[in-house]
């Protein structure tokens, strides 16, 4: 019965969470993957992966990605083998019935920082860092939202009482986020391609990487869509002409 009452209350919108405080509307960013012919910028993807690896991956997993997927960022198969080999993955059981550690292979899923959610919470003051492989698709506003969060840390305005271990973020619903500011200073990451790693640049790059992680087939989807629609437009024209011709006898 309580469950029933709860569901009913939810249904009628009575049991929703407290009304979220006003958040400013998301500033719109330019993304290489927007628009009909948009594709992921490979430079941004590789830089973004570097930011993920050196910053985000301390707390966040990307469990839907395997090392082999990294070839789509423009890395060669040899490079991906090298990247994978740097990670230690648990395999087994072996002939002795024991699990063992070995260097990663391209076919392995990219291991996360924590063995389970409880370990993740224990290391983060009770907060659970969400898996990032679908993050861009899980949030209204998509990449603009992720970028806004990464660049939205501010000192709390006067009169706002912060809960312990919480940080003020303009764009987070309720403004109190458990994630400490991940991008704290320029040149936090030393980009392999020599790009100047400003905070905005890093936020932009890692968001591009996360957008790819969430929707790795976007490039192919956009390419195929253009061909399919072109085909359909031509077909529609031909069939319209045929329709006119066939119906001409009737009018």
């Amino acid at each position, binding site marked *: 019965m309580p469950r029933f009452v709860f569901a009913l209350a939810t249904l009628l919108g009575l049991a929703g969470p407290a009304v979220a405080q006003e958040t400013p509307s998301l500033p719109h960013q330019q993304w290489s993957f927007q628009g009909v012919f948009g594709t992921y910028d490979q430079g941004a993807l590789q830089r973004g992966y570097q930011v993920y690896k050196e910053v985000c991956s301390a707390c966040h997993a990307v469990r839907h990605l395997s090392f082999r997927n990294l070839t789509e960022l423009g890395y060669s198969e040899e490079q991906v083998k090298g990247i994978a080999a740097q990670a230690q993955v648990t395999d087994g059981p072996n002939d002795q019935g024991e699990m063992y550690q070995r260097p990663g292979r391209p076919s392995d899923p990219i291991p996360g920082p924590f063995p389970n959610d409880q370990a993740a919470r224990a290391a983060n003051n009770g907060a659970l860092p969400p898996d990032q492989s679908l993050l861009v698709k899980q949030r209204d506003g998509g990449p603009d939202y992720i970028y806004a969060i990464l660049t939205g840390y501010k000192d709390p305005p006067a009169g706002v009482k912060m809960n312990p271990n919480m940080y003020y973020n303009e764009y987070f619903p309720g403004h109190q986020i458990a994630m400490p500011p991940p991008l704290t200073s320029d040149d936090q990451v030393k980009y392999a391609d020599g790009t100047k790693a400003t905070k905005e640049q890093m936020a932009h790059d890692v968001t591009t990487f996360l957008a790819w992680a969430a929707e790795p087939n976007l490039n192919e*989807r956009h390419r195929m869509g253009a061909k399919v629609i072109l085909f359909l437009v031509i077909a529609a024209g031909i069939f319209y002409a045929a329709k006119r011709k066939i119906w001409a006898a009737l009018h």
Partner: protein
Amino acid sequence: MPVTGTGRTSRIIRWIDYRLPFVTQIEHELYEYPTPRNLNYWWNFGSLAGIMLVIMIVSGVVLAMHYTPNAEMAFDSVERIMRDVNYGWLIRYIHMNGASMFFLIVYIHIFRGLYYGSYKYPRELLWMLGVVILLLMMATAFMGYVLPWGQMSFWGATVITNLFSAIPVVGQKIVTLLWGGFTVGNPTLNRFFSLHYLLPFIIVAVVGLHLIALHTHGSNNPLGIDSKGPQDSIPFHPYYTIKDTFGLMVFLIVYSIFVFYMPNALGDAQNYIPANPLQTPPEIVPEWYLLPFYAILRSMTFNVLGIPSKLIGVMLMFSSILVLFVVPWLDTSRVRSATFRPIYKKVYWLLVIDVLALGYVGAHRPEGIMVIIGQLGTFYYFLHFLVLMPLIGKLERPRPLPTSIGAAVLPAGAGAAGGN
């Protein structure tokens, strides 16, 4: 048009046709099936709905080969389809957006019927079978939405199955039966998958009956008057096959724009978060095609005569579809087409606006003005069918009907010349 020719193929076809007159039947329904010559493009949506049903079944059967109906694995299996199955992303986006396209088509098809009075004598059963298809589609779509086992899948299933608990005495038992347990969980997902696979084939069967009923008296037409002879009708093939094919191409362009360029625009971002029974999403909202009914459900915020508001809300929601079954008898006018019904035509567009407004309300939190609009919209919805429809039929003075379809659409004198 029997199979002619003396070639081997023709002989084989004739041999089969003599025993199983399949070819004759098809030819009868395509070549000899007389169709009014004045059907406009709104009549394309019947065949489009049929094609959409086939697209959904084919893409769905392929998805089912890769999907795992288990609460622990369902979400990841869908992601695996999106990432690792060859063209899995394409098949899934076709299926996912296909549901929206299917409802869009069927809603246009239904509103076309309401405008041109396609439900009137002798097409009452044709119309009622259509309402059965709509109900089956809603059940199928709802259960399909649960399968990816995202947050909105789980909480949508929780809210909708809980509606049945409003039924007095047996309600809670029915809910337990639907769930296969005491909460939405793995057994729920399993039975929803089973039923989601089953119901489309039942839809196919009802579509078959819908087509038999259609072909018995033929299509209605924009003038709403009966065919009075060969000059009023043309064979379905090639005239409507080509017109439908052109319409199909235009529809596929719209469909493709969604599949390739905005595949998640109609979905909810929350459903990319794996189901979490311990965390309610900020808002539980159904897919857009169920929003008007959701608004009607939520419109009851007060008890009436001791009947709890929830029970009334549930009854109103089901009634909003069930009322369609009796539309052929609620509409008392003998004139079918709204073209000749000045008052009904205006009221018809008010209904369209009302349903759109209810959809808008359904997408928003039931607070402040939304509650009022939802209640007024619900009131007007039932007012339209239960009061205005019977009343207008009696009071309205329809404009004079043309003597025949041919006389109305052909140049003067040409109508008498007969066929082509």
